[in-house]
């Protein structure tokens, strides 16, 4: 498989309800604060992983820049 290009992710703080799915689908790039809301450690992630994380966000709060 060719290595996928990178994408930049961001979180809509108003929509986010803290399911924590992004921290699971993008380990390392996203961690959770003590209430379960995401902290983005690295905006730049592989594009395929980013698009999966965006699709699985239950609050559709994660998006590509």
């Amino acid at each position, binding site marked *: 498989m060719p290595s996928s290009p990178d994408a930049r992710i961001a979180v809509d703080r108003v*929509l986010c*309800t*803290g*399911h*924590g*799915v992004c921290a*699971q*689908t993008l380990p390392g790039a996203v961690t*959770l604060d003590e*209430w*379960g809301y995401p902290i983005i450690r690295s905006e730049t992630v592989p594009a395929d992983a980013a698009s999966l994380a965006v*699709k*699985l966000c*239950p*609050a*559709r709060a994660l*998006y590509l820049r």
Partner: protein
Amino acid sequence: MSGQAFWFLSRATGVVSVVLLTVVVCLGMVTAGRRRPHGESATVVMGVHRWLSLGMLVFLAVHIVTAIVDGYVPIGWLAVVLPFSSPYQTLLVGLGTVAVDLLVVLMVTSYLRHRIPERRWRIIHWTSYAMWLAALAHGFAMGTSDQPGLRLTTIACGTVGGLFVAWRLVASHADRERRQEINAQEWT
């Protein structure tokens, strides 16, 4: 394949569809109502909710096509999309059609979710409860009495789904509560 095989296939795929639909609806309720944060399972639940709903379409398509192609009872292709147009069991087949129509709406709006305001998408997504009830009623009433297993499966689906609905109604909303707390705080 003889006509009878189609009829059996239609009933088998119908009962599988109602089971998978119940699982998808329950996983949706788990996602909407669970206290957060809660580790890995949220991702699994969301992934299964998303992709099992697509997988169910295969069984549903076979269920619909075989019921019509079988030809033992007149249903007609129009009844796939237009409710209450089947000459055979107009009301009961029509409930299945209503569920199919709602399912199409839910699939399209979820596919286009990024283009729909969140509030509107949410209201539309609530119709999945109506879709599930229509499918259950269709399955229960048409799971013929000489096959109690089919009807029992539908009853089991309704019972499990009903328990999930009850849990969903009493489930706490961690995010909403936190937002209310913050709203109640005084700004300094």
